[in-house]
């Protein structure tokens, strides 16, 4: 086994498990930032340099901020944050369900004869070819994503500010 891969896998899984089990929401969010960084390291390890930096920029730089903002805007005091304890049944059934899904996936992955080519050099996709792909064959998709981003931003603004004036009238 590749040692780097093992380390990255450990970082990803450990931070995800810790984030899922923390009681403090801020800790969860910050651990998830670690998780996202781990995923970025994985991309780097796999040779997808550009995606790794994009992942770091978008997840660590933007989405983490949004998450923390959401936590702070909906906070009570720090001590009141984790009061939303789930019932034992829910947790147990969720863990069982998750374990079952993992079992199925693991068996499927291990049983399938996957045609691999480990000799392929890492980082085989250059920035230039990536750009040409995006602007050439994938141009329509880029446009659609652009529209999606704009619409979601506008939608978010509308959603978040919908109460601004009619607040007193709302029950």
């Amino acid at each position, binding site marked *: 086994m590749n040692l780097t891969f093992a380390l990255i896998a450990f970082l990803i899984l450990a931070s995800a498990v810790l984030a899922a089990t923390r009681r403090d929401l801020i800790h969860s969010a910050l651990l998830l930032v670690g998780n996202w960084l781990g995923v970025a390291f994985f*991309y780097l390890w796999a040779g997808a340099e550009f995606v790794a930096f994009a*992942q770091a920029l978008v997840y660590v730089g933007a989405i983490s901020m*949004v998450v923390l903002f*959401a936590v702070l805007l909906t906070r009570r005091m720090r001590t009141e944050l984790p009061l939303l304890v789930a019932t034992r049944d829910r947790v147990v059934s969720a863990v069982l369900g998750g374990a079952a899904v993992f079992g199925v996936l693991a068996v499927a992955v291990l049983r399938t004869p996957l045609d691999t080519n480990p000799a392929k050099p890492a980082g085989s996709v250059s920035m230039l070819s990536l750009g040409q792909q995006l602007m050439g064959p994938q141009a329509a998709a880029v446009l659609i994503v652009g529209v999606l981003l704009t619409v979601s931003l506008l939608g*978010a603004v509308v959603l978040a500010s919908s109460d601004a004036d009619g607040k007193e009238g709302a029950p």
Partner: protein
Amino acid sequence: MNMLQACLLLSSALFCIGLVTALSRSNTILVLLGIEIMLNAANLNFIAFWRFSPAGSAPATGVIFVLFSIAVAAAEAAVWLALVIALYRHQQNIRLQEATRLKG
């Protein structure tokens, strides 16, 4: 077990952690974070297949797919921040079980 299978196992495990988080927690933010984990697990798969599968006709497809996925995740994050804030305004907490009404 080759490297590709190891990567796929990693992403499956990550996906299941996300699934368990989304199912077991009642805090809206944590549920959404679980979904975000699952999304990342899927992205891991794309990169793993791109890296380890034999060279095909479109060499950069996996990378481009992940790029789009990241862009969509950014859009999604903006929307769910707005949703969480709207939810909080309506019911003064962000417990998902209590968000049973479509109308405030």
